[in-house]
């Protein structure tokens, strides 16, 4: 269904003819395959998100405001997105206007002294990091990696990542916010609203930004955020990371105050104890169980492939035939990667010594080959500091999603579930050939959560071939099974169905009645009712979609 001519013209009058289109093929390239990645529902083979009514590229806050007001006038739903890398950024209904925020990609200012940056929606972590490093600063990078919008991470979604234990999460890092509210009014929070600057996002009194995001962001359903300030963090390194090596085996050549380790433990208890001790001690710049996403059985093989420009995926099995590789694979069973960055030589020495003490106390050790082989070490360091390889989530097949994950939070909880979840997946991998057989435990996750640490995430990677119907449908069945298993075994609500309330198997929003039923039974039902009230007041024309969770009463 298309926009009426008058509606299209009104939008074209705002952005100009070069920045709006309703060409069908163009619109189709803006449809997201529901068989792809990290949708946390499905996967649904052969299904795409509904085609938008048009795509519009605003170039300024004023244009965004004008667009939102037009949408209110004509009751056109709209969805703004910056990075376009997950189904939540795409329409859920027909006739939705897709806002592509890529023209608003400027870093407006970096305040070096007070350590924050002011950015537009399409500033990705990579470019902010590059500019911040020039002045001795760095940015937190969310788990989705450096290609993603920081503002979207701050307002739209989770915002957690490997550097979280040192740099917090993007939601917490957000200072002043400029936000086109769902009705088109412009809200500037905190000091920004008073015309003083961007440095403080709260008040006066209660924080209006409470509506712009909670523990989770609003996923483009409540207006459009157009600028924000985010905190930056110290970077005691060169103005850019010197990189050597042949693609893809790039390596960071950094001074000795930058260190990366793969820590391994003989027991899960030791693993958890070490996480707690690390947080208690206050060391670390980034911490993540990253490489395990390739699977317990395959991770070291993959590391060898990725660090050797002559190798391909087909070499994994041969690499793993080597007894030494098998030994290291076994050694790294219960591992996580850990980056230390010292602000001064004394600092790095103390941090490393403290780490050694923690490892001695918890039965852990630094995996030798990962620290002594300069290629593996420098590649790992670059990986974590840049987070520029998150596409590796999809390396096997082009697709992945996370399952289980409901036992995230305090490590003590997760370690009780990890082997059981891993076995469930391994049994499935061995029984069915529809998902990649990676060794069951494919759990990746941050060792930290938010600033100062405190939680770990356990996202168990499932990879299937999105081109292969059988594989994709097999992955769907697997996720149905894992979700059910987790619920039955007190493992919490899995991430594989996190957004199942927002979109159905046809790629469209679920019928309202179905959502009501789901949410009425949820322990969060009262919160959803309040979100409904907030939506009624601030988004009265209901121009968002079900990614904003609300529980309403059926109309009589």
């Amino acid at each position, binding site marked *: 269904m298309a926009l009426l001519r008058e509606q299209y013209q009104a939008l074209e009058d705002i952005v100009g003819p070069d920045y709006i289109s309703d060409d069908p093929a163009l619109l189709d390239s803006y449809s997201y395959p529901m068989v792809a990645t990290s949708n946390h529902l499905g996967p649904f083979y052969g299904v795409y998100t509904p085609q938008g009514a048009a795509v519009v590229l605003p170039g300024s806050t004023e244009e965004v405001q004008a667009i939102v007001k037009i949408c209110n006038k004509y009751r056109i739903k709209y969805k703004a997105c910056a990075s376009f890398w997950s189904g939540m950024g795409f329409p859920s209904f027909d006739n939705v206007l897709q806002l592509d925020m890529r023209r608003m990609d400027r870093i407006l200012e970096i305040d070096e*002294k*007070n350590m924050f940056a002011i950015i537009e929606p399409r500033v990705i972590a990579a470019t902010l990091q590059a500019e911040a490093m020039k002045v*001795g600063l760095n940015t937190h990078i969310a788990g989705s990696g450096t290609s993603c919008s920081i503002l979207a991470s701050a307002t739209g979604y989770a915002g957690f990542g490997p550097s979280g234990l040192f740099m*917090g999460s993007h939601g917490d890092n957000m*200072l002043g916010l400029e936000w086109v*509210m769902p009705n088109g*009014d412009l*809200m*500037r*929070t905190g*000091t920004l*609203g*008073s015309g*003083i*600057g961007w*440095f*403080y996002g*709260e*008040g*006066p*009194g*209660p*924080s*209006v*930004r*409470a509506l712009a*995001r*909670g*523990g*989770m*962001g*609003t*996923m483009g359903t409540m207006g459009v955020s157009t600028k924000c300030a985010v*905190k930056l963090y*110290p970077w005691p390194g060169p103005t850019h990371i010197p990189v050597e090596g042949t693609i893809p085996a790039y390596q960071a050549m950094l001074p000795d105050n930058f260190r990366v380790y793969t820590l391994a433990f003989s027991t899960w208890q030791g693993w958890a104890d070490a996480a707690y*001790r690390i947080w*208690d*001690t206050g060391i670390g710049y980034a911490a993540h169980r990253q490489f395990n996403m390739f699977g317990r059985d395959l991770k070291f093989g993959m590391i060898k492939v990725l660090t050797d420009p002559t190798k391909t995926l087909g070499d994994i099995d041969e690499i793993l035939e080597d007894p030494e590789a098998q030994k290291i694979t076994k050694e790294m069973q219960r591992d996580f990667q850990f980056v230390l960055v010292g*602000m*001064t030589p*004394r*600092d790095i020495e*103390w941090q490393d*010594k*403290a780490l050694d*003490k*923690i490892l001695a106390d918890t039965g852990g050790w630094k995996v030798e080959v990962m620290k002594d082989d300069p290629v593996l070490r420098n590649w790992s360091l670059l990986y974590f500091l840049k987070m520029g390889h998150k596409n590796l989530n999809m390396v096997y097949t082009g697709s992945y999603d996370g399952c289980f994950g409901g036992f995230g939070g*305090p490590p003590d909880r997760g370690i009780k579930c990890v082997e059981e979840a891993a076995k469930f997946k391994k049994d499935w991998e061995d029984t069915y050939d529809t998902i990649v057989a990676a060794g069951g435990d494919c759990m990746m996750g941050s060792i930290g959560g938010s*600033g100062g640490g*405190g939680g770990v995430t356990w996202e168990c990677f499932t990879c299937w071939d999105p081109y292969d119907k059988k594989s994709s449908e097999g992955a769907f069945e697997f996720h149905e099974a894992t979700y059910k298993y987790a619920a039955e075994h007190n493992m919490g609500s899995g991430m594989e169905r996190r957004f199942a309330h927002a979109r159905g198997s046809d790629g469209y929003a679920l019928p309202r009645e179905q959502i009501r039923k789901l949410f009425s039974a949820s322990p969060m039902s*009262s*919160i959803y009712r*309040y*979100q409904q*009230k*907030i939506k009624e*007041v*601030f988004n009265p024309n209901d121009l968002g979609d079900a990614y*904003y*969770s609300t529980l309403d009463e059926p109309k009589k």
Partner: protein
Amino acid sequence: MTGKKEELAGIVGETNVLDEPETLEAYSQDQSFSLPIKPRFVVKPKNAEEVQGVVKWANETSTPLVPVSSGPPHFNGDTVPSVPEAVIVDLSGMKRIIGIDRRNRSAQIEPGVTYPQLQQELAKEGLMIPTPLLPRANKSVVASLLERQPTLIPKYLWTTLEPLRGVQVTWGNGDTLPPGGGQVDFNRIVAAAQGSMGIAIMGMVRCQILPKIHKLFFVPSSRLDNLIDFLYGVLRFRFGDQLLILNSWSLASILGSGADQIEALMEKLPPWVVLVGIGGRDTLPEESVDFQEKDISDIAQKFGLSLVPAIPGARKGQMQEAILNPSKEPYWKLGHKGGCQDIFFITTLDKTPEFVKVMYSLAEQYKYPISDIGVYIQPVHQGASCHCEFSLPYDPNNSAEVVKMKELFTKASEELLRQGAFYSRPYGIWANMAYNRDAQATIVLKKIKEIFDPNYVMNPGKLCF
């Protein structure tokens, strides 16, 4: 008993409904210049259910409620009624520490739990929470943090509410939502709301490890602007625990008592000092303190300053003991002249010397002795912003001083606002100033208020309500 009293007694128990004149008098005013308005009753609920009951009752009877969790003296006007016939909801009796989880470093507490009470229990588990600057011994932890009162250790301030990580609220409409949130940050709706959105019935705080070793150092200077870049340097590296700047009045008021002693100390103390606390915790504590001391000293030297273990005027360990504990009685700010008005706001650290100049210039205009002005500069949010506080002591029993103080307070507040001060906690006269500057925030907050307190029972007359 009157009808209302009986109804309230039915909720909180007869002994917890107070209406004696002296009691009502005590709750009608505080140290601010708010006009005293007597409440109708004071109720003291003992638990969350009673709080919910009172709020529901207030909605049914259209009775204004004024929540208060800390003990007196109060200073900001937010815990006294702005309208007649209000009921004070005094939560100071809800003093349960519901649980302490050493492993996950969290504590769940009721609103009446005070800093010394909590610190004592946390210490048994090897934990602590950062505190504000010498809080009153009867200061509620939840209230203090919810009002965004700054704490002394910037590196732990991941958010503006730290160490408060969660709060459960009975909202103005009587609903209580489960803890945790969804896509709305309910914590931030009730934060700095001066009790005008709801009543916090439980708070969850994130604790830190209690240092095994703690040392306090000083970086003195005759000029404030000499200290700014040094402080930025330490903040950037995230070294040290406590980091704050005090001037000689603030130092003297903390260290001494009584006008004579305080004034004598002011002669000895350096005009400006950065206090640098360094803590060594469970893992290699001595080495941790040692390297930080050396590195911070190097930073100081870079700016022509020195990190020293003592300052003239303070006995060994005296300052450290002071800042690691609540205020002695009388509250430290009242020690000089018996009364004190504070003006505080948010800015950035680099702007604080200018604000000090503005304040001094106004003081001169109003013939208020500059030497009597207390200054407290506290980096917050890991250095992204800064709490700047001026303390103006005066004799509350001297009517001429009171008149002058009212004038100075008002004019200074206005001028500081004009120069870029941000009253993020808009008490009293700051509310109009702040909201007049931000019309959109006013509109949105009113809409939020309509959702959470549709009958306007929660502390009417505060903020923009």
